[in-house]
């Protein structure tokens, strides 16, 4: 009798575990459509790299912050390049930096890219401090780490894990269980969408409304090279607003105090460059321009940390460096605001970069 009871208990538990494992994983993956996370620029990286991987032409990928995003026009670079089979992709993301971009390095290496342009900016070389107890911390990093690592597979986990600061560890999913758990947080939203679809309620429009083109379409390929950019901020300002901006906003760039070394951002940058170089991918470090008014008010040596970082990486890894931060002839009409280029600026960037890129690709 007892043996029969034990057998029944064991069988019940086995069936329960099989159903649980099957149902939870299959429902989870059907319930949580990746489009929940990949319908905006913040979640497009892995789809973009998978697209680039199947492109057999020479490929140049630009990664970095909104400065890179607003500087690179892949279509212009392609049109001006002397190498017709080269394609130029812009994967710059607002507020991104090496510390967030490093997560894509293993996938980038596997994507058969030929050249990677990495942004090294005066605003990206700061030290991150542990948030004071009771404060939430960096919500942007939480969002980026959570989404990126949730969309990864085991092959995307690399040595970048060691660069992650201990107080950011909770946001990083490095195995399938953690990734499933992270996705679980969105299953209620996913279920709400399914219920809305079943009931034919129109509230899903906002969720389904993609900020970027459908993956695999021609628009998608074009978008990776030439994303949509907002109009120039300066052009939207009248003379008075522009004057106020010059007086109040330009000097904010002086708040950047780039460190020469020792921060997690430096460690991430070092990881990016070394991994790519070791994988035989050519790397160009790019410092992007700032408005001439900013440069004119810059105290001597204020951004030396940036110069030192660039020099150190060039010396150590023998990579190319294009310093547009301190290069002359950038004019007001090139800028959308104090540190982002507008359409004119992109064109100027394109003309300046094409020969350098052609040179490297030609090698």
């Amino acid at each position, binding site marked *: 009798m007892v043996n029969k*009871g034990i057998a029944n208990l064991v069988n*019940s538990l086995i069936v329960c575990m099989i159903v649980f494992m099957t149902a939870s994983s299959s429902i989870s993956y059907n319930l949580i459509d990746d489009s929940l996370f990949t319908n905006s620029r913040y979640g497009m990286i892995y789809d973009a790299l998978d697209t680039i991987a199947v492109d057999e032409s020479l490929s140049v990928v630009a990664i970095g912050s909104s400065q890179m995003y607003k500087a690179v026009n892949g279509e212009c670079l392609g049109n001006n390049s002397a190498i017709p089979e080269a394609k130029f992709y812009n994967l710059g993301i607002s507020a991104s930096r090496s510390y967030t971009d490093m997560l894509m390095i293993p996938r980038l290496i596997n994507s058969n890219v030929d050249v990677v342009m990495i942004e090294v900016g005066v605003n990206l070389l700061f030290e991150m401090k542990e948030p004071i107890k009771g404060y939430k911390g960096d919500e942007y990093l939480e969002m980026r780490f959570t989404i990126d690592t949730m969309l990864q597979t085991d092959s995307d986990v690399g040595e970048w894990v060691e660069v992650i600061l201990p107080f950011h560890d909770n946001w990083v999913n490095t195995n399938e269980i953690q990734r499933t758990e992270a996705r679980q947080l969105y299953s*209620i939203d996913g279920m709400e969408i399914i219920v809305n679809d079943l009931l034919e309620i129109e509230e899903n429009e906002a969720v389904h409304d993609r900020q970027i083109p459908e993956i695999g379409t021609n628009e998608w390929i074009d978008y990776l090279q030439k994303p949509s950019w907002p109009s120039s901020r300066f052009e939207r300002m009248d003379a008075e607003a522009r004057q106020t901006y010059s007086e109040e906003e330009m000097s904010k760039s002086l708040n950047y105090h780039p460190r020469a070394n020792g921060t997690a951002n430096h460690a991430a940058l070092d990881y990016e460059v070394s991994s790519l170089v070791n994988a035989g991918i050519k790397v160009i470090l790019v410092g992007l321009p700032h408005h001439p008014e900013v440069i004119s008010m810059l105290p001597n040596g204020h951004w030396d940390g940036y110069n030192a970082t660039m020099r150190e990486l060039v010396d150590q890894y023998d990579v190319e460096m294009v310093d547009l931060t301190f290069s002359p002839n950038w004019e007001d009409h090139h800028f959308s605001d104090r540190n982002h280029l507008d359409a004119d600026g992109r064109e100027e960037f394109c003309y300046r970069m094409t020969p350098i890129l052609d040179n490297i690709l030609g090698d």
Partner: protein
Amino acid sequence: MDFTSIEYYQWFLPTTFLLVLIATRHSKSSRIWILLLMSYVFFWFASGWHFLLLAISTVNDWIAGKQISKSSNLKVRKGWLIGSLTINLGLLATFKYLDFLIETWNVAALKFPGSPEFTTIGLLLPVGISFYTFQTMSYTIDIYREKSEPYDTFSKFACYAAFFPQLVAGPIVRADHFREQIESPMKISPDLFRLGLTLIIFGIFKKLVIGDNVALHVNHIFSDGIPLDNIILVWWGALCFGIQIYCDFSAYTDIAIGSSYLFGIRLPENFKTPYAACSPQDFWRRWHISLSTWLRDYLYIPLGGSRGNKRTLLFALMGTMLIGGLWHGASWNFVLWGLLHGLLLIGHRYFKMTKWNIYFKDKHRSSHTIMAWGVTQYFIFMTWLVFRLEDTGMMWRSLKTFIGFDADWDFSSAWEQLPEIKNLTIVIVAMFIIGHTISGKIGGFKHWLGKQDAVVWGFINGILLSALFLFRPAETIDFIYFRF
């Protein structure tokens, strides 16, 4: 640590189970000592140093019970009883009601200039104090009434007072029932173990998937800035809160009973599909049964019950419900909640005797049942507003709206006020209503499930666990009855 914390399932319950399993092979007393020790470990993690209050209460009732039993002198017996009750109620009054009394005094003092004002002490409410105090009090009272014998060993009594599954939020177990369980040859049977697991899984599902999801709507609707003059919104809020509190509290009981089953101990049921009740009296036979029977035996009957005249009956009913309300928390809300339930019980007593009701019941039994159910539940859910809303202004506004006074019926405005996740919650509420109805018909879903073969049992529990994994909200809400 509580029944939704990972630690409980990760180490506490398995460790306790293994220790009890090993001890069962040796002797009954070692098993009791292990349960006692682990109960205090649990209480330490749940409530810290407050375990001392439990220890004081235990020693107090152990000594009082022994002394009452030993003496045949009524005066001595009464003296020990009063002493024991004074200590028990004194601890309860100090830790639960003292600040409430001071605040009430201070508010009253405003009306009488020159009256002294006192500063509140700010004592933390010890977890489970209302539950274990009532439990140990019933032990001493039963011995005094010669309805029960004292426990033969201190360890058994201490285990009864502190048994961790029911310690924090019930059910309130009677001493004889628990004695029967631990004195019978305790067997950890596979069937009982499986039933225990069923109750635990079902309980966590109810709490996290149903209770916590509808709680998001409740917390949103009854937060500052949401206009409570929309009748649809207030009805929805009351419905959601009724479901939340049931799924929250009955889930705790399910997990408590399920955990006990793992050790071969059966605890009494605390809920029997309360929202199927067709009268207020019926509701109290189905809701928090261990408290309502406690109040009946130790308050309602001693106050005269239904044996005396009408005035005695009214006094007993109202007195019981007022104290029952106050038992829930040190706030006038709970007194008012008790008062409303007292009025409902009294109103029902009179209404059911009316000729019209008797005629209608005889001639149209089904319609009478449906109408009785509808009216009962309407008032029950209305009283939940008093239970939920501490802010007096919001409470009166929502009560007025609930009965349609000065309220608007704008559906689209109510819809806009709901949180982002709307339709899923509506589906959950609909499924709860269907499930509650079916559960009532089959004598409890969890018991039905516990009897199924391995495939059905495994399949349904696997689905419940998957739903639990996928549909629990990001933040777990504390058990409501932990506050009591």
